[in-house]
């Protein structure tokens, strides 16, 4: 699989696509999020696996997003996600509130090709009350006489899963290590677009040590090299999150004007110098 450029990858994400994104602690492709802002993507529907962070806030602030389904949007230690918060209050974002295990479950149902899976909890919450697409049914395995209502969640197949992997090999296999929820998202999605730190020779699946952390090329539509592509988020043990930068983002993005200033400095100019530091 020949790597493509970041901009070519951004062009493969059609407006309106349902895009699965990992949270800041789990291999986000901040680089591709910035490229999507540059390409002027519109109407994206973001799915947090299971929550969202910097990339989502950036895309929301830049007007790329019509809908968000997630269990939370947060910048972690830097606090609330300002553009998300502003958009919700302004009512410009369609929101589907979820809870983390429900998103994992809906993706696992799609991964297995079953139409639904059950999940405990949720009954009595306003999350469930706001999800007409979720059902409550009696547990068919409950003892006779017991009602035992349980939530049934439909399979959820993203159009595209986007994430940043530590490496790809020549076949297009990518290594995400222990972040198996990303593998589930890639399995569940129609296709995966993956940015990577680097491309290595050989076949990662042929190495028993590395294979358990691999997502097979079977699921990977395209690979683009983006060094420090998770930045300002961290990448496993390769680099730590740049907390100061996220805090700077959080500060600037408090206002529309500050957000535009941030984008001009760090997004629209292409790969920022700080990313290579």
């Amino acid at each position, binding site marked *: 699989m020949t790597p493509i450029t970041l901009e070519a990858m951004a062009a493969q994400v059609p407006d309106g696509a349902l895009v699965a994104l990992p949270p800041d602690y789990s291999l986000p492709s901040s680089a591709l999020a910035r490229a999507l802002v540059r390409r002027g993507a519109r109407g994206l529907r973001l799915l947090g696996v299971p929550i969202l962070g910097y990339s989502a806030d950036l895309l929301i602030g830049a007007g790329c997003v019509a809908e968000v389904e997630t269990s939370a949007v947060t910048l972690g230690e830097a606090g609330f*996600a300002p553009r998300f918060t502003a958009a*919700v*209050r302004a009512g410009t974002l369609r929101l589907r509130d979820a809870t983390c295990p429900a998103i994992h479950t809906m993706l696992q149902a799609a991964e297995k090709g079953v139409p639904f899976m059950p999940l405990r909890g949720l009954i009595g*919450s*306003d999350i469930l009350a706001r999800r007409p697409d979720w059902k409550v049914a009696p547990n068919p395995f409950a003892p006779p006489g017991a009602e035992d209502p349980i939530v049934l969640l439909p399979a959820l197949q993203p159009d595209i899963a986007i994430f940043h992997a530590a490496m790809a090999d020549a076949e297009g296999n990518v290594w995400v290590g222990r972040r198996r929820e990303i593998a589930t998202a890639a399995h569940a999605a129609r296709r995966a677009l993956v940015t990577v730190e680097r491309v290595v020779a050989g076949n990662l699946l042929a190495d028993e040590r590395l294979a358990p952390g691999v997502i097979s090329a079977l699921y990977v539509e395209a690979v683009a090299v983006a060094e420090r592509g998770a930045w300002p988020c961290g990448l496993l043990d390769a680099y730590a999150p740049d907390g100061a930068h996220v805090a700077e983002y959080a500060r600037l993005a408090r206002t529309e004007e500050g957000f535009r200033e941030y984008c001009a400095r760090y997004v629209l100019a292409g790969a920022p110098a700080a990313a290579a530091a």
Partner: protein
Amino acid sequence: MSAAAIRPEERLAVAIARLVLDPEAPPARHVAIGAASPIPAAACFLVRALGHPLRVSLQQRRTANPFSEGSRELFDLAGQGRIDLFFLGGGQIDGQANINLIGTGEWPGREARFPGSFGSALMYFLTPRTILFREEHSPRVLVPRVDLVSAPGVSPPGVYRRGTAQALVTGRCVFRFHPGRARFSLLSLHPGETVESVRAATGFDFDIPAHVPPTPEPTEQELALLRGPVREAMLEPYPEFCARVFDRKSAA
């Protein structure tokens, strides 16, 4: 080491540790702690330092993360019954122990939007014990009725549920939760607080026993452990907290 030197965070950690060790509560062998919960984490490390066997799994820890199945493993563990104790907070918490991590005003938070419910809508049901923790104790947070329910404090009979809140720890006091009557009662008052000051700061109604003791002061042993091995254990996962509370920065 004088009592005056005790920081509020230390006092809260000790109060939580005592709840963890409450012999009347279901046993806690394994506790999971979210990324944003340094005080509960310090409390659990203190329990360990006191010699009690307690497995402490810190979520979202960047290095030496205890999970290898990604972020769903925490919820699967809870489903398996392998998590005995969890901590939850809330943008709003009400007198029936309902928690709201969604927002205020009309859904989805047209007045103020919080980040979202995370895993609370499962964890609160499947964990035998939940300790609610919120430092801010004000009528803004502790409300008569949450605007939106991320996870309910109690569930009707027939709804599968393994546990409820054990207690609510705030910057002013400790409440015990009584699931049978879905009400809190005042368990102890932190220094400087009175029944009246707590009542004034609390939006919900709660039970007040005839005698409300002060929250027990940390012992010399507890303080020494907090400032020794607990601080060391906290340094990697919670560097900001250690710098602030223990005046200690990571060498890294």
